[in-house]
């Protein structure tokens, strides 16, 4: 009897381990961040892009309004691609687009806006990238849909027409 228990338990243990590893193979190894969680927007102090004056985040984001915070930079190539979409969104006038200029040279950033247009209602500066960390951002470009001081959804990477349609649906 004793002799039978030993091989039997070894087989069961190996079976369990095999099952766990086999299950692990099916999981995606690429990390996909959670983009739907409702989180309060962070509180921070920063500088206004054009005037260089100090601004508080509570003044930029008002309650009861829909905002799209867009993190952009003149050195970021995908930002150029999504810029016309932001211009269109601004023309539709359903939401306020706020820009966060990320780790940029201000002259280059101004030229970028002169060249491609300015869709932003307000722009503030994140010179060392720490405000983007406060927002839980991964890099540029990235957009946050905000309502009532809460992040409704975030879009990592450049926006495309599909995502813009989704935003239009969400804010209806």
């Amino acid at each position, binding site marked *: 009897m*004793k002799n039978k228990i*030993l091989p039997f*338990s*070894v087989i069961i*243990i190996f079976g369990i*381990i095999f099952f*766990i590893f086999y299950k692990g193979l099916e999981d995606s190894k*690429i*990390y996909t*961040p*959670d983009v739907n969680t409702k989180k309060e927007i962070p509180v921070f102090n920063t500088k206004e892009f054009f005037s260089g004056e100090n601004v508080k985040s509570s003044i930029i984001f008002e309650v009861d309004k829909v905002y799209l915070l867009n993190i952009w930079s003149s050195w970021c190539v995908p930002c150029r691609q999504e810029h016309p979409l932001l211009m269109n969104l601004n023309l539709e006038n359903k939401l306020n687009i706020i820009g966060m200029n990320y*780790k940029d040279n201000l002259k280059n950033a101004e030229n970028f806006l002169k060249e491609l247009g300015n869709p932003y209602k307000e722009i503030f500066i994140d010179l*060392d*990238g*720490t405000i*983007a*960390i*406060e*927002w*839980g951002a*991964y*890099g540029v470009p990235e957009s946050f849909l905000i309502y009532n001081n809460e992040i409704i959804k975030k879009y990592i990477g450049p926006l495309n027409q599909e995502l813009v349609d989704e935003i239009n649906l969400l804010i209806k």
Partner: protein
Amino acid sequence: MKFLKFFLIVIILFPLSSINAEENDKKNKITKNLRCLICQGQSVYDSDSEFANSLKIVVDKKLQEGLSEDQIYEYFKTKYGEWILYDPGLNKNTYILWLLPILIFLIGGAIIYKSFIVKK
């Protein structure tokens, strides 16, 4: 006189540098346990990406604000989720990871005990 001045400067700077070193060690330890989220497989300490460099500045700021190591981990966990930590805590997604080695150790121990020690 010059030598005296030099000596004084060294004496004044010495304790400061040791404080800085201590803080640096702590910062390095924390950034080694944080995952660089856009350059996966690397820690923030190892990475030189824009994201990692900003994160290092934030860790520095938080340390200067007097936050403890655990508080800093907690802060990043609320911002980016558990994934950012290389040393995850025990929860419903990681319990197998934590408990399996103990389980295997116990079962293995029991087998060894039964087949070798009891036989004697």
